[in-house]
């Protein structure tokens, strides 16, 4: 049976999440408790099967030949030398794609295999299947591609007026926000131009998977992804077969952070498997992974803030240019976020913001944790510090004066109707006691580490502060629903949901929710796959706790109602007087109880639901509209030591407060916050894909450096600000993205405070400080 648990403002029949009061019984293993991950033990034992651990009888290894050029025409391809190699089973080119030649998450403009032209370094050109991975790689290298190299377009600002490098043109989206009286000016204005480099998600588990062909022309794919059902849709179109003939199962996912929202090897694996009739496995190497997935958009941002003499914001003007790279991916949604949130979590009566996401011959950019809000947070927070300096005002006081909250409007005109405790988050973080961090005599604590490069006496310390926010769930009218099924039999609950567990801990929450709603202890999680359940939507946009959590909750409640109705009928009482608790059906008057295992013995109580969030609207031609479902904010205070001569930075402390709605699992929440901050630290100080005419110069962990234990300081969580969100299951907000949004800006502010330099670009490189 299917029902809709519509949680809508527009008269949905069944309201689901009603806030914190719906927590029936926290218990020790339910919602709110510090429950461990169900996959924790196999993961520490090395028994958990990731997508690179798959094995099948007589399987082949796939390999991808990629373009070495950012822009070139393909005049011819000679696969002869590869085909002739012993152990090679297939060599495939664009002509071998039987269905739609292109795919894409929002706009299908990316070729499954390059056809006559390549538009970025790393674009897939040919596929090989062989009986050993080294033979597959050598065969790919033996393919002769005759390229006519052309001048790459690598400047996003120049893209709109340059000759089109794709039939769909060089502009993914332009967006203009006009809000309030645009003729107004402030008594005080500050301007700045800011840049953000291209960050990589750098998940640990490389892209990998295995496809198994069936004799009926269908294919089974085990793969690491963020969204099984949208993968299936794109794969089936490229293969030219019905979606039912493509069955996906989530294989163990080694992190995602946005980089698995787009397809990478999915179509390729299925093509090779169907072509050879054998199972085919692919595992990207690390350098291939850097080329094989989208990155965070590099940004250039021009800002002018207007305020009155008391510090009240009067108007924000901004122009934002994002380099989307060669193909659309999610660029149109990223530029919408960047534009909508460009003014920050502040009351801004007037705003004129223009955003452009442009196509270039750089690597494609798309989703990464924070999704557009990260880039503009660096811009608006740099501006707020500049404005505070111009007003001779405390930067925290300036932010508090302008902090947005319920009843205020965003620059898109959207009225804030849910919780949005910006001021509380600022206060909790900024006024938390500062840890005493003595200048250490342990060289490992100094900028540059134990290499004896920095003297403690030469370091300077600075503290910086930033606050940021973003939306939860998808926006602009998109109905990103989730589906879940619950079955209770013999006292055991089984939950089926296609939500991609990527490490975030949804599997833990799903069990906690089922325990709380059903009073059971044992909760089995069925595999996440396309054949057994509808879409869960993407594990992105901080949305799964709300959306798939909401779907699981609704499914459990429907089953609970069925059970209680049957028991009530048998006992001749009202179901309102019965609860499920501790594996029992209990009457509230204490007169009757029965074992749930007996009540559900051999029975099949089950429900299958779709859960929808409140509908949103498109933005109009002025960028106005109720485009977003909900918002979450966080603040960060960073303390850094800097060696100004060498340009080296050591972050000594990060303190944070975050708007979480309601904490469902404290340890998992801490893990999300610490991990998100580490990625923000990376963007602030060390992480950038270095490009040279479109060529990626640092596709390795040797040259693309991410934070280690020696780079990450202890994180002090000053407060989880718990204001339950109306309409959210248990009042909980997604917590994955806010830690990554303002942590970079806070660290940059701290380095500015230490050095007195402008530092308008992140990552801050040693030369920016030493030679700046």
């Amino acid at each position: 049976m299917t029902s809709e648990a519509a949680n809508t403002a527009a008269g949905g029949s069944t309201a689901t999440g009603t806030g914190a009061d719906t927590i029936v019984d926290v218990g020790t293993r339910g919602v709110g408790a510090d429950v461990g991950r169900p996959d924790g033990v196999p993961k520490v034992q090395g028994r958990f099967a990731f997508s690179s651990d798959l094995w099948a009888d007589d399987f082949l290894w796939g390999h991808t030949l990629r373009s070495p050029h950012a822009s070139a025409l393909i005049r011819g391809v000679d696969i002869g030398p590869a085909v002739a190699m012993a152990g090679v089973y297939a060599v495939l080119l664009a002509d071998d794609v039987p269905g739609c030649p292109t795919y894409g998450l929002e706009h299908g403009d990316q070729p499954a295999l390059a056809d006559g032209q390549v538009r970025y370094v790393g674009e897939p050109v040919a596929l090989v299947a062989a009986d050993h991975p080294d033979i597959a790689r050598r065969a790919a290298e033996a393919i002769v591609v005759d390229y006519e190299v052309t001048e790459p377009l690598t400047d996003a600002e120049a893209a709109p007026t340059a000759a089109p490098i794709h039939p769909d043109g060089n502009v993914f989206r332009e967006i203009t926000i006009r809000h309030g009286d645009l003729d107004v000016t402030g008594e005080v204005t500050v301007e700045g131009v800011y840049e953000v480099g291209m960050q990589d998600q750098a998940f640990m588990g490389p892209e990998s998977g295995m496809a198994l062909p069936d004799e009926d022309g269908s294919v089974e794919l085990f793969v690491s992804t963020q969204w099984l059902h949208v993968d299936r849709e794109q794969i089936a179109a490229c293969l030219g077969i019905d979606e039912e003939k493509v069955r996906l199962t989530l294989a163990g996912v080694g992190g995602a952070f946005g980089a698995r929202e787009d397809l990478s090897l999915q179509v390729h694996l299925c093509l090779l498997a169907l072509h050879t009739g054998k199972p085919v496995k692919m595992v990207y190497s690390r350098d291939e992974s850097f080329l094989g997935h989208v990155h965070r958009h590099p940004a250039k941002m021009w800002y002018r803030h207007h305020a009155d003499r008391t510090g009240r914001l009067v108007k924000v003007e901004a122009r934002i240019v994002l380099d989307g790279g060669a193909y659309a991916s999610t660029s149109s949604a990223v530029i919408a976020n960047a534009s909508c949130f460009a003014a920050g979590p502040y009351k801004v009566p007037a705003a004129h913001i223009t955003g452009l996401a442009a196509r270039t011959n750089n690597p494609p950019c798309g989703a990464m944790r924070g999704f557009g809000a990260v880039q503009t947070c660096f811009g608006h927070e740099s501006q707020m510090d500049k404005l505070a300096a111009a007003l001779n005002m405390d930067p925290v006081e300036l932010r508090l004066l302008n902090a947005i909250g319920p009843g205020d409007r965003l620059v898109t005109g959207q009225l804030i109707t849910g919780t949005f405790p910006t001021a509380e988050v600022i206060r909790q973080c900024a006024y938390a006691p500062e840890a005493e961090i003595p200048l250490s005599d342990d060289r490992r604590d100094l900028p540059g580490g134990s290499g004896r490069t920095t003297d403690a006496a030469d370091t300077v310390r600075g503290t910086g502060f930033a606050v940021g926010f973003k939306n939860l769930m998808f926006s602009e009218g998109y109905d990103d629903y989730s589906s879940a099924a619950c079955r209770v039999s013999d006292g055991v609950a089984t939950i089926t949901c296609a939500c991609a567990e990527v490490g975030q801990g949804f599997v833990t929450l799903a069990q906690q929710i089922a325990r709380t709603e059903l009073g059971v202890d044992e909760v089995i999680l069925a595999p996440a796959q396309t054949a057994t359940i509808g879409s869960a939507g993407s594990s992105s946009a901080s949305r799964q706790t709300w959306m798939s959590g909401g779907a699981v909750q609704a499914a459990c409640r429907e089953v609970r109602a069925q059970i209680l109705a049957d028991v009530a009928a048998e006992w001749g009482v009202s179901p309102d007087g019965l609860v499920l608790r501790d594996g029992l059906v209990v009457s509230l008057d204490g007169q009757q109880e029965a074992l749930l295992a007996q009540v559900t013995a051999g029975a099949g109580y089950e429900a299958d639901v779709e859960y929808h969030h409140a509908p949103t609207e498109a933005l109009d031609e002025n960028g106005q509209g109720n485009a977003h479902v909900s918002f979450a904010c966080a603040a960060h205070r960073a303390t850094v030591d800097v060696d100004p001569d060498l340009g080296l930075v050591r972050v000594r402390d990060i303190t944070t407060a975050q708007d979480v709605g309601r904490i469902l699992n404290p340890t998992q929440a801490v893990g999300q916050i610490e991990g998100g901050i580490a990625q923000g630290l990376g963007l602030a100080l060390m992480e950038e894909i270095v490009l040279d005419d479109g060529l990626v110069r640092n596709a390795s962990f040797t040259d693309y450096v991410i934070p280690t234990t020696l780079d990450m300081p202890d994180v002090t969580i000053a407060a989880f600000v718990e204001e339950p969100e109306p309409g959210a299951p248990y009042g909980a907000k997604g917590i994955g993205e806010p830690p990554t949004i303002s942590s970079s800006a806070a660290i940059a502010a701290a380095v500015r405070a230490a050095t007195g330099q402008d530092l308008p670009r992140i990552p801050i490189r040693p030369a920016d400080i030493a030679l700046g």
Partner: protein
Amino acid sequence: MPDPYSLRVNGVDCEVADSDIAESLLFVLRERLGLTGTKNACTEGECSSCAVLIDGVLTCSCLVLSATAAGQEITTVEGLGDGRDGLSAVQEAFVAEGAVQCGFCTPGLIVAVHDLLEANADPSDGDVREALSGNLCRCTGYGRILAAVNTAAEAKRSQP
């Protein structure tokens, strides 16, 4: 193909047949012997997800030609369990402290922490950070991992 050879892994002699001489120890463990606990995040010696002990020395198995490890004692994450529920104190602490998210770096960290605590039963925060600075983790920001190392060290010290 070279002659078959034998690797001693977790106390068991394992025949390696049909292996190309160029195969790394990581590849042979994973693809020839089915020991997929040892992970392959970078295969270039930068992330330590493939860490194993070879004659007690912490080593990136991706950088070792498999055949050269013949005759040595190889210990992988699969060989470290003991105690309650087959979990070592380190493994138990990782589970209890929430040190695991996606888990891809976890096996390498488990091996590295075993190695650290064998050499230093009471490491300082700086010692732990330095010892694990070659183990990349992208999910956790290391906070819960460091907490787990402290918990494991305490548990091991309190063992009779």
